[in-house]
């Protein structure tokens, strides 16, 4: 297998789907999942390029992305929990007091 372009295209597609997901869904958790999807897409691209260039740096980067994603999920979900506890709803649109 000598050409990684399909991987890159797949990663692009997943990334786009993730983006649309973030914009369309209203449930906070689903939005969060879409963000995770986008992160995975970028990981795929990193690994693919690592393979392309024969340099493990890509995989190291992917690894770090995962670590950061973990931290992010932890805090993100904690926030969603607190919002849910006070507002009894996990919809993203409900938290819209900070406006004109």
């Amino acid at each position, binding site marked *: 297998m000598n050409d990684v372009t399909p991987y890159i295209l797949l990663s692009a597609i997943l990334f786009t789907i993730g983006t649309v997901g973030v914009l369309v869904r209203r449930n906070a958790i689903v939005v969060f999942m879409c963000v995770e999807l986008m992160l995975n897409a970028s990981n795929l691209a990193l690994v693919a390029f690592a393979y392309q260039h024969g340099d493990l740096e890509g995989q190291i980067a992917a690894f770090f992305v995962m670590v950061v994603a973990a931290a992010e999920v932890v805090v993100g979900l904690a926030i969603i929990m607190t919002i849910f506890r006070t507002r009894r709803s996990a919809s993203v649109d409900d938290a819209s007091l900070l*406006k004109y």
Partner: protein
Amino acid sequence: MFLFTEGGHSIPVVDPLGTAGVFSLMWLVIALPLAGAAVLLLGGRRTDSWGHYLGTAMPIGSFAISVYMLLDLLGRDETERSVSQHLWDWVSVGDFRVGMDLLVDPLTILFLLLITGVGSLIHVYSIGYMSHDPRRRRFFGYLNLFVAAMLMLVMSENYLGLFLGWEGVGLASYLLIGFWQHKPSAAAAAKKAFVINRVGDIGMSLAIAMFFVTFGSTSFTVISQGAGEAGDGALTAIGLLLLLGACGKSAQVPLQAWLLDAMEGPTPVSALIHAATMVTAGVYLITRSNFIFELAPHAQTAVVVVGTVTLLWGAVIGCAKDDIKKALAGSTMSQIGYMVLAAGLGVYGYAFAIFHLLTHGFFKANMFLGAGSVMHGMDDDVDMRHYGALRKAMPVTFATFAMGYLAIIGFPGFSGFWSKDHIIEAALVESPIAGVCALLGAGVTGFYMTRLMLMTFFGEKRWLKDVHPHESPSVMTVPLMVLAALSVLGGVLFIGHWIVDWLSPVVGEAPEHALPIPALALTAITVVVVAAGVAVAWLLFGRRPVPATMPIDVSPVIKAARADLYGDAINEGLVVQPGRVLTSGVVGFDHSGADGLVRGGASVVAGAGQGLRKLQNGFVRSYALSVLSGVLIVIVTLAVVNL
């Protein structure tokens, strides 16, 4: 030294000598009244008690110095009769150097004598006239200020100094006309006088600017020497601008509306400023600038035209006025018209203009002070229809007024006869039309002066109930007698053509001009015309009783004359109304236009702010969308740029 002889007459060059002897006191002539004015105006209450005596002493002092200078000049040879004194460098910028210089030459000395002589008499008269006015000190202060400014005007050796005196006189007349400021009419008249003078001053300023541009200096000496080489266009323009200035100051036709309103001021003011001195400043200016007018024939014809028109204009107004002072003011305007006409005739006329100016100074001041004395007796009532048969009540005033009357109508032997007759004669020679108008004017003068005399002193009493006229105190009648004597003996100046020869070093000589008809016949015609005027007046006002109230249904001519031939209406319509509309328009434009732009800009910014505010709608997903659109823009531009 003469400039050059052209067309038979030579134009003298102003070439003054250094000061010597009494002339070193030249500056004192101005300094005295100026000091008097300063002391009186700044002195405040303390100078109230003796203020007016100091005020009167100043012009008398100047008069004494002037007489002394006259004697010194008489003793000199004809070519050395002009002396100049440099006081200090006034304005020197680059090659525009103007010194505060004074010049006394035959023309100036005559004016000095007139101003200080008649001025002193009027000051003495004012002591009586203003005796019970609370602000007498301030009045004398203003009078002294006026005398100082007038002296500066006539004695200055350059046009800028002349302009300084010119505006100083304008200011003094503003202050004196508006002396009784609590009367709104007086304040309005004062403002009107100053503004119209100011319009005339546009001419003066531009003329002086042109002097500098063309001759590089504003001093008479340099200009008179360089006048020969200047271009005709420049000279004519300067001439016309000087004429505009003269009209403003001497109340000639285009700018004459202020003179009749100026009668709001106290009578001595009218006598001094609006009869003897200030209004003649225009004639002095034209005579002094003879080296310009001689080389600008068009300007001279303009002067003649203005003189003739004003001559008739003033006469017609004089006939219809019931207010004694306004009638005299109308006659002043007409007499100055004569002088301007004479000055416009060129070298022939200058001497006669000045001669008439002097005699007019005497008899007009005499009549104004007489009118003042009449008003003094009639509790300041100016309406002639409430006078009548005052000759018995105020014999001295009647006698002196009669002398002035005989002089002004040109009764043979009196001063007015000599001066006006020669003007008519010169006018007939130079420009016949003007001559005929002058002759006609003489007749009308006879008419309105006789009407004035009959309505005031003859006929039966038309006094108001509690009015009982009495003769004025001697402090007022003595100056009247002196002036009456001068009006009678004024002709002496003309014995053996003395005044013409006296002024020739200033205005140049002219060969004897051939008269179309013998002089005696011409004089006879004039006397007949005047007699006709007098007779008509006698028929209308002598035989029939004068109605106590002004008749309303009169011919349109008289209606027009009563409204100053609609002079004011023209000014109002042409200048004041459009000016007011323009001003409010400009204020409106400034508020909505210039300021509108600024306020408009501010509201646009505020509107934009309101609009953008709506973008912040609180929904996370909208913000995410804007982030995405940002990314898209970046990607698209990258793609486009790379292609």
